[in-house]
């Protein structure tokens, strides 16, 4: 197969985004059709990517695009996750916008654009390309967050996210500059060559990597760069929150993993730092999550914790034979559960997201048993109860940590997951063990409910057949 085939899914997504943008101009454009179209683009891109994964055995020539973009099994996996996230987000959106009327065609266009940015981010083998991809992704997401202009909450979320995101983006630039100063190039390949002969603790390299990491930490909401995440998730619409929580994190982790896997040298110099960040992220996230009454905020906080777990995997990755399988697997597991949660929330949230608090879901199991069951499955997966995907993900992460000699980190990760049990169970308790106070009327079968069920099945499927590994 041709080398460019690897980029086919990207091209499809990009074309989709542009087409939808053009479609938006058309006076008869309807957002519902646009949602179906974007669904189609994501699906096609996903299957194209799947085809790529299954058939392309050769890696891309390093000369392609001057080596600024690269493809590996890890990026392929990350792209798969991103496309799938996009697909399920459009499903949720389709349902969500039945009761919330602020969508336009541009919404889906931007969704596709942000997916393009994410895919580029995970493929980037050069820092400024990464920066631009990051900005494409971020800007598109900012807009999506603030899409509901009538809502002051959405606007506020947009504002916070934008200011802090731009603020953190500046660090990326500074970091890139420093690395450029040190290695004379921003291409990963050249940096790796340079690192082969120079220590990673060369001040410029150290400082550069530091500032780069800060931006990534911000994007993955690692402690202490986490504070935005609750407010932003809270303020944005359900499908977008799901998309942000999953695809964006996947892309950011793809970048950081690609970067750290450049050379063992670089990775080793960051182990201590990552260790502490991971620990603080896990525990900080837990302590924030415990006090939340709003499900979206709780999931946001739990997202912080999950980032902590992923950081454990980052600590433990072996740059000699980096496959990123553990990270990809965990991201997939996490994404499935989180997307499922938000699909369910999109479906059940009601008009203007009137049901968002734990108490709003009291007695759901009595009225909507299937919905309650699927939400339970997602929560159990996030909590890491076997045989869900979340458990296997956690299992791999702890295994990789212990194999890498980071036993303390493994233990701390486990302790954190014990702490996380409380707030996951709390929602289950709400749904099952209280009497219903309302009827949870939702209008019929919807795409979101289908996607919820599909994701619930996916949770088990990924857990029981971990094909990635």
């Amino acid at each position, binding site marked *: 197969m041709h080398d460019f085939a690897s980029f086919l899914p990207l091209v499809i997504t990009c074309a989709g985004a542009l087409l939808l943008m053009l479609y938006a101009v058309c006076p008869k454009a309807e957002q519902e059709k646009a949602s179906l179209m974007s669904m189609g683009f994501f699906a096609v891109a996903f299957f194209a990517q799947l085809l790529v994964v299954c058939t392309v055995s050769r890696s891309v020539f390093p000369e392609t695009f001057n080596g600024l973009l690269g493809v590996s099994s890890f990026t392929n996996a990350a792209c798969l996750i991103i496309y799938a996230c996009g697909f399920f987000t459009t499903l949720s959106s389709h349902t969500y916008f039945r009761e919330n*009327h602020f969508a336009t065609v541009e919404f889906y266009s931007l969704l596709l654009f942000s997916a393009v940015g994410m895919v580029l981010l995970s493929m980037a083998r050069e820092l400024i390309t990464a920066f631009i991809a990051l900005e494409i992704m971020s800007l598109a997401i900012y807009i999506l967050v603030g899409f509901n202009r009538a809502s002051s909450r959405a606007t506020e979320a947009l504002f916070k996210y934008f200011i802090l995101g731009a603020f953190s983006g500046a660090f990326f630039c500074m970091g890139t500059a420093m690395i450029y100063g040190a290695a004379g190039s921003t291409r990963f390949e050249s940096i790796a060559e340079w690192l082969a002969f120079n220590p990673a603790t060369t001040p410029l390299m150290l400082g550069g990597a530091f500032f780069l990491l800060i931006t990534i930490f911000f994007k993955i909401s690692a402690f202490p760069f986490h504070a935005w995440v609750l407010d932003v998730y809270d303020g944005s619409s359900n499908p977008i929150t799901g998309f942000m929580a999953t695809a964006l994190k996947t892309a950011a982790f793809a970048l950081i993993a690609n970067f750290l896997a450049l050379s063992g040298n670089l990775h080793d110099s960051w182990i201590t730092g990552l260790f502490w960040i991971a620990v603080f992220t896990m525990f900080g996230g837990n302590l924030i999550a415990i006090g939340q009454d709003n499900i979206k905020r709780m999931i946001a906080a739990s997202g912080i914790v999950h980032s902590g777990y992923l950081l454990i995997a980052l600590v433990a990755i072996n740059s000699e034979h980096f496959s990123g399988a553990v990270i990809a697997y965990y991201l997939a597991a996490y994404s499935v559960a989180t997307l499922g949660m938000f699909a369910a929330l999109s479906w059940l949230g009601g008009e203007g997201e009137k049901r968002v608090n734990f108490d709003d879901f009291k007695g759901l199991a009595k009225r909507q048993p299937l919905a309650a069951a699927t939400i339970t499955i997602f929560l159990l997966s996030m909590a890491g109860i076997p045989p869900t995907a979340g458990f296997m993900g956690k299992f791999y992460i702890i295994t990789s940590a212990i194999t890498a000699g980071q036993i303390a980190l493994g233990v701390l990760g486990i302790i954190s997951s014990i702490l996380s049990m409380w707030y996951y169970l709390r929602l289950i308790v709400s749904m099952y063990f209280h009497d219903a106070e309302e009827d949870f009327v939702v209008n019929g079968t919807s795409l979101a409910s289908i996607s919820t069920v599909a994701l619930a099945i996916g949770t088990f499927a990924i857990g029981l057949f971990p094909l990635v590994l």
Partner: protein
Amino acid sequence: MYIDTLFSIFALTAVAGSLGLVLFRHPMRSALCLAVTMISLAGIYALLSAKLIFLLQLIVYAGAVTALIVFIIMFLNLREKDLPEENERFTYFIGGAVVLIPVAWFMIKVMKSIPEVKNSIVGNGFGSIKEVGQMLFTNWLVPFEIISLLLLVTLIGAVVLAGIRRESND
């Protein structure tokens, strides 16, 4: 040397401008200070033999961006009461400066680790439009292309956020 002298002048202007930017209460003044900083920086780029960047800095930043900002400030017709009081900004500034000392110290240490090279104007093609352009369209094609995507997104965003919206269920 005249380069050093020019650098000192530009640097002082830039710092002064940036301080003004941060400390002036009214955004209009801040915007003007920003313009001052931008222009000083453009001069510094010139000193660093980055001709194209020098131009871009003047055109895009000092020109377009600052103008845009000023325009929006005027557009919003901000009055005194719309602006936050912000009497505490000096306190925060000083407190923040204290917090930032380690960061600055760290960064300066990092920066000072480079070999001592005397700046002098590099002649010929270095930083000229042609050379840079050639590189841009060969080695750096991908970022260049995807920047177009970025601008598209911004375009849509500006329309979606600030423009007139055709509501979906009209």
